[in-house]
């Protein structure tokens, strides 16, 4: 699932198991198919109580959850899950682009919120980012992708040993991209994670910010590290 040469889970690691809780069967099937195609093992539950029971009884690495299910609000389910001691990251999928306080709480808890309608690739990308953030246990002080280095303590960036001048926002953008190196990042994911705004930024805004960063990182004579995934987003990875 990762581009060659990119640091990912060790090869002997077991398959990542994802629980899909979604009351619309066709959507559930599509999400599961998409996850399977990306190398995950997907289990499905079609209502809230069954989903909660499954999440409590088996160990899942991540959960995708429909916000609006008959009988049980997804946010309540997450609460019950956390109370039961489960730490699995949750990706909430909702028809509401709601930015209410409870959703803010969800995001602050390290989980994510995806608005329907969504592209299946976006769901997988968000899940990967969630999992990666979740697995990162020790505090990192330094990030490195090929000859690009980021010193998180001194807040400095180097390419091929030379310092790169970055504005604070550019530093945050680069940090997010390097933390998720080898991973497709959609414009909306970048906008939400780096700027923490949850509305549609339009196509061009993020392109311009990434473009500016790219001119600083991928200088003339250097191998390009930031790759554009046409119509989808960006990926930073070693050449």
């Amino acid at each position, binding site marked *: 699932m990762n581009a060659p040469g990119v640091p990912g889970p060790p090869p002997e690691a077991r398959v990542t198991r994802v629980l899909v809780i979604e009351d619309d069967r066709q959507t559930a099937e599509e999400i599961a198919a998409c996850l399977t195609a990306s190398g995950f093992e997907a289990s499905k539950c079609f209502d809230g109580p069954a989903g909660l029971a499954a999440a409590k009884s088996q160990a899942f690495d991540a959960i995708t959850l429909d916000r609006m299910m008959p009988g049980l609000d997804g946010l309540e389910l997450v609460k019950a899950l956390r109370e039961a001691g489960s730490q699995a990251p949750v990706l909430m999928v909702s*028809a*509401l*682009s*709601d*930015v*209410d*306080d409870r959703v803010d709480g969800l995001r602050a808890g390290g989980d994510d919120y995806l*608005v329907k*309608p969504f592209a299946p690739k976006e769901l997988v990308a968000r899940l990967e980012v969630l999992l990666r953030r979740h697995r990162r246990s020790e505090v990192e002080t330094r990030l490195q992708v090929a000859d690009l280095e980021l010193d998180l303590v001194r807040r400095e960036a180097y390419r091929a040993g030379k310092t790169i001048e970055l504005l604070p*926002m550019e530093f945050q953008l680069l940090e997010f991209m390097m933390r998720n190196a080898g991973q497709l990042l959609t414009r909306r994911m970048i906008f939400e994670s780096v*700027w923490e*705004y*949850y*509305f*549609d*930024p*339009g*196509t*061009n*805004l993020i392109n*311009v*910010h990434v*473009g*500016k960063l790219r001119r600083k990182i991928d200088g003339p004579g250097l191998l390009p590290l930031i790759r554009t995934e046409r*119509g989808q987003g960006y990926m930073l990875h070693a050449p």
Partner: protein
Amino acid sequence: MRLSELWRTTTFRLSLLYGLLFTVGAVALLAMVYVRSAVYLTHRVDDILAVEAAAQMRVPAERLKPTIDDALLINGRNSVFALFAADRTRETGNLTTLPAGLEPGGRPIEMSPTPDFPAAARLIARQLPSGEILVVGRDINQLREIRRIIASALIWSGVLIVLAGLVFGAALSLGPIRRLRQLQEANHDIAAGDLKRRMPTSKRGDELDMFAGAVNYMLGEVERLMGEVKTSSETIAHDLRTPLTRARAQLHRLEQAPKVLPGEIAGVTAELDEVLERFIAILRISELETRARSAGFAPTPLDRIVSQVGDLYQPLAEEADLRFQVVAPPLPPVDADPKLMVEALSNLVDNAIKFTPPGGAVRLALEPGPEGPRIVVQDNGPGVPQGERTAVLQRFYRAERDRLTPGSGLGLSIVAAIVRLHRFRLELQDAGPGLRVIIDCHPAPITY
């Protein structure tokens, strides 16, 4: 008109109540007149009787009988004079027996007509020194007549007042009942779907008119909202038909084609993405409209919001070869949802950058206004024609210029919804050339 309907009207009940109150008052007044005059007349009779008895008692005993007989000759028709022996046998006078209850020296009594004296009379008795009993009395028919007249006046006037009250009440209630009928008919028509219909009002401006006026105001709002919903639905349907038709045509062509090139499928996907993008914007607007007013509101320094949006869009403006000026002086904070304000300003600045040709200028400024801070986003692009300026603020309206550019085209609708949520004011002006959008960040008072 049914009687129960009449009974339920306020006017009728009020007239009836007033009639009853008036009757009670009139009865009390007449009763007082009656009691006072009756007491007065009785006293006068009693006084006369006492004087006459005293006069008779002064007559020497041997002359008393002839004196009584003389008095009877003169006044026997309307006076009583009688003398009884100590053993209560009649000696002379126009009474055969001493009436029961009449005590010598006691209180006066009233006597019904008897064969001896054919009229009601009031009597007193006195004991003479000889032991004889003298009875003096007077006809009191006149007094009884007066009592009767007053009592009948009481009854008749009471009956008349109550009847008149009923008739007047019914007559006065007819008007309101007819008005209510008209209101009910209008209401029936409106409920059946005629939103143009209004409640009838008169020129009087009474309570029914006030009520009908309030209902008419509400109907106006409902009609406007229904119109807006209808327009919105039509706008959405019209807007979505184009990309969906194109996607369908492309799919149809791909079905016929012997070989499908990867780029062709991407074309269809792009069309559908556009549809989805518009749907997301539509959902967003609906969500903003149904959101609880003050959720997420906090004192917000607008200068910080303006600078953030300025930083966010600076690179985009540079890339589009525009001069981008951001002015954010520190001003007192206003009650607002900071995230939504960023979203609104982003949409405005994004629009300004999108529609201003290279070499132009975009200005984002926070200014102190007469009532509170205002945010101005100005460009020197083509602007929005006068006739379209109010339309672009409507729900789901896509300006003509948006139809040829990428994006949902609903940015201004989103801005308008956010501004409405804050009860701020949004204004579009001609910047000659270009468009000037002003958000007056002073919440309007709530009016009904």
